[in-house]
């Protein structure tokens, strides 16, 4: 629900004074209006009470008791009922308005962009739906020079944070959106909002400050030593830029090698729950020695060699071929591997193929050599290929 106030009451300067910024979403504007509404009730009640107080003290001061000190009623039921019921009536709309605003801040739309947020003493981490984490240049939040995460959310799209903590209780607080929620270990809490204003770092010539700087994020639940340094910056960017950026941000540091990326994929994407890398038995076939082996499948292929193309196809669409047991031609393993099409990016794919290759003795040396390239170098090549337009896509690793 969005209520509005008469402009004479909801003046912009009042909001600017009490919030120091203009709310960045419609719910924030609703909260501001409610705040200003309560503020006026406060001011009117307080001024009335104090006028009476000061008037009585002046008029009935002891120095004037010869004339003004008189008997008056010691109680008056209608009056007392009035001043019990009127405040009650005044509070009903405040309660109701607060309730609708609360419900609005809690119930995220179905189509929200979901971002996972982890709180840990004393740092916030964000994970996007493709597994990416912010890697942009970090900014300073406090004078202490504390480096904090700078993450992005898309403009004009509902954004839902799904939050949990890995140690103590924190609270994710975005003052500009006028909302916060505790971040609790062992359970998920969520908050959402609808960003409607682009972050704009161009300098306003009048104030000398950025027109619309990134939103500050604080931890609002006391969490120990560096509680006051546990912040983040959040920028609102156009959807296109958002999509491009999170595609570029994977959660792999730029300095690690492609082989390491493959190893990380093995654990992060959950491959490790079915595929061992040391030859031990598990739910799925082990990766040790897989590359270069020949197998038969339910789709009729027999003695098919496991190579790069095979691996790529089977990771993306795992249900196409089901491995048959060598002895009895029956299905050898449960057919429960997820389909990874759309779940894994090119970097991860190349990394994991190299990693699997490195687990076969024959291809170990070649894979390790090819896997020396770092994520940074990989990105540079990718960028060069894109800009050059003519350059061929990253060359497939040489066959053994």
């Amino acid at each position, binding site marked *: 629900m969005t209520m509005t106030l008469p402009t004479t009451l909801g003046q912009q300067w009042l909001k600017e*004074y*009490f919030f120091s910024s203009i709310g960045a979403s419609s719910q924030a504007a609703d*909260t501001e209006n409610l705040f200003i509404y*309560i503020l006026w*009730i*406060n001011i009117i009640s*307080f001024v009335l*009470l*104090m006028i009476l107080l000061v008037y*009585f*003290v002046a008029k*009935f*001061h*002891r120095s004037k*008791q*010869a004339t003004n*000190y*008189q*008997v*008056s009623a*010691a*109680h*008056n039921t209608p009056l*007392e009922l009035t001043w*019990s019921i009127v*405040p*009650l009536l005044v*509070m009903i709309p*405040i*309660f109701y*308005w*607060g*309730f609708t605003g*609360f419900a609005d*801040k809690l119930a995220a739309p179905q189509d929200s962009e979901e971002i996972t947020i982890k709180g840990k003493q004393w740092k916030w981490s964000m994970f996007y739906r493709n597994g990416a984490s912010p890697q942009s240049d970090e900014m300073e*939040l*406090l*004078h*202490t*020079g504390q480096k904090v995460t700078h993450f992005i959310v898309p403009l004009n799209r509902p954004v839902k944070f799904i939050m949990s903590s890995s*140690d103590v*209780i924190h*609270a994710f*607080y975005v003052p*500009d959106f006028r*909302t*916060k*929620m*505790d971040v*609790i*270990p*062992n359970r998920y809490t969520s908050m959402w909002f609808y960003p409607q204003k682009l972050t704009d770092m161009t300098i306003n010539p009048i104030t000398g400050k950025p027109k619309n700087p990134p939103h*500050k994020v*604080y931890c*609002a639940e006391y*969490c120990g*030593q560096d*509680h*006051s*340094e546990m912040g983040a910056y959040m920028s609102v960017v156009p959807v296109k830029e958002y999509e491009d950026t999170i595609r570029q941000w994977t959660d792999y540091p730029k300095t690690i090698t492609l082989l390491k990326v493959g190893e990380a994929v093995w654990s992060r994407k959950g491959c490790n729950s079915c595929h061992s890398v040391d030859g031990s038995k598990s739910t799925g076939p082990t990766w040790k020695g897989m590359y270069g082996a020949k197998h038969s499948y339910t789709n009729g292929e027999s003695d098919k060699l496991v190579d790069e193309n095979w691996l790529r196809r089977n990771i993306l669409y795992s249900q196409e071929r089901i491995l048959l047991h060598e002895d009895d031609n029956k299905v050898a393993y449960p057919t429960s591997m997820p389909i990874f099409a759309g779940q894994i990016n090119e970097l991860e794919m190349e990394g994991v193929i190299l990693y699997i290759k490195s687990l076969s003795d024959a291809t170990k040396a070649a894979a390790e050599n090819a896997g020396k390239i770092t994520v940074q170098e990989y990105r540079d090549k990718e960028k060069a290929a894109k800009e050059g337009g003519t350059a061929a896509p990253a060359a497939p690793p040489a066959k053994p």
Partner: protein
Amino acid sequence: MSAGYGHHGSYLEYKGGHNDPFWTVKLPRTIWDWASTIDHKKIGVMYLCAILFMFFLGGMMAIFVRTELFNPNTVTTIAGKTVVAHNWIGQHMGVGENIAKSNEYYNRTMTLHGVIMVFLVIVPSVPASLGNFLLPLMIGAKDVAFPRLNLLSWYVYLVGSIFAVMSLVSGGVDTGWTFYTPYSTMTDDGYLRVVWMVTAAFILGFSSIFTGLNFVVTVHKLRAPGMGWFDMPLFVWGIYGAAIIQVLATPVIGITLLLMIFERTFHIGIFDPRMGGDPVLFQHFFWFYSHPVVYVMILPGLAIMNEMIATGARKPIFGYRAVAFSTLAIAGISFIVWGHHLFTSEGEVAAVVFSAITFLVAIPSAVKIFNWIATLYKGSICLNTWNLYALAFLFLFSIGGLTGLFLGSLAVDMHLHDTYFVVAHFHYVMMGGTIIAFIGGIHFWWPKMFGKMYSEIGGTIGFVLVFIGFNLTFFPQFVMGSQGMPRRYANYVEEYHLYHMLSTMGAYTLLAGFLTHLVTFLHSLAAGKKAPPNPWGSLTLEWTNASSPPIEHNFDHEPVVVHGPYDYDNVIPPQTKPGEFVLPRPAAVAIQH
């Protein structure tokens, strides 16, 4: 009342011979007399001294906190070198370049301020000191119902304080006064100081229960002949309401703190999420006590207000019954609003119910304010120090109460929760309410307690400093809070700097005000004029029937109540100076309350 000095001496008087040698007989005997006393007045005075000492200690912590926050820590890079400009703690605790260390000092100081002020000062403040001293006097009794239990509660308080001080000297704790799990069960692992501090709070709870139980029984059984429930001074009603909450709510915190100690020591997995426990459960348990206890803190403050306003205006309290019933209403409703401390915990739908009930509890509090202002109407209002405090209370408590509307409203609380707005709100209620009433009450009953008058000039100067200092300290915090400054921050961004500076200057002004009061009181004890039995012209029993200071057994004869506590329309208080008190109309038309 000069008859009072006939065969009984003042309770403060030395009972031995006049020629006893000081060091060998007089001093040890005096100490023993006080340490073993079961006289509610002496116990009240001992509590008063202890609480004021703790108030000083907690206040100094607040001064450290404010000093620390005057400037933020800054790190700048000058010619490629990182230069740390520390705030106060950083400069004076020798932490060098280490900002984390300075944050840790801040966190410990902030926690100690909270723990000391809540558990050692404001919960026992009015009931244990003024309540102990005045409750029997006001209802015409010789003592409380269980005098020995009363002495025990004092010693339990002392033991609790010793545990708190042990924790303090061994490094203090950094959990915040709310001891939220799982932080409180993980921090300072391997040290006993958290356990000591929690044990202190646990033990202090028993002191609180003993006092509460004692008062409930005293009010029920020991009222003087002729004093019905609605002939009791409203101070007694307030203390009674608080005592009921103390007895019913304190066991819950006792159990909770015990569970927390077990969790820390034996890792039983009730609150620890790593073992399947629920950290939010602790918050529910904690606030199930700590919210009612907010009213243990404020009801006695409201109780003092009744006596000061009625005496200060020489009028019956307007709507006596409404005030009495609102006391009970507050005590009752206080048990079902704890959830409003958890609005942002998980976003539960139950928050809606708690929000509604929270608004409901505002009504009886508002009714009291209206009644007091109506009491002033056609009165004869004096501006003695204590009545200035009563009027200041109306000012500050109105702000404290009204700003509660922001926090009770769910959508706004999502923004304001755990910011400085909350800090300002509860300081306006707890300090602007309870402590202001407490300081006013000490001024009001000082002549009765110690038989000496104090300098009104000293008192007024102190009051002005406290009033200005208080508002300067806490009003900017409302603005900071609504602008988004989270609480319990050792450090902050530049945009809040001005407000923090104002707030810190206010804290120094407050300190100056309290020190002025201290000097005034010490001067009064050393050189104050002898107090008449009823210097303010009040009608409650402690003023009309007892001398200043009261004799050991309070009254020469058991008083018989012949008029109401605020029957200024019909009765001229005894010991009023000739011509000072004017009744402008015949007593026959007096209206009964």
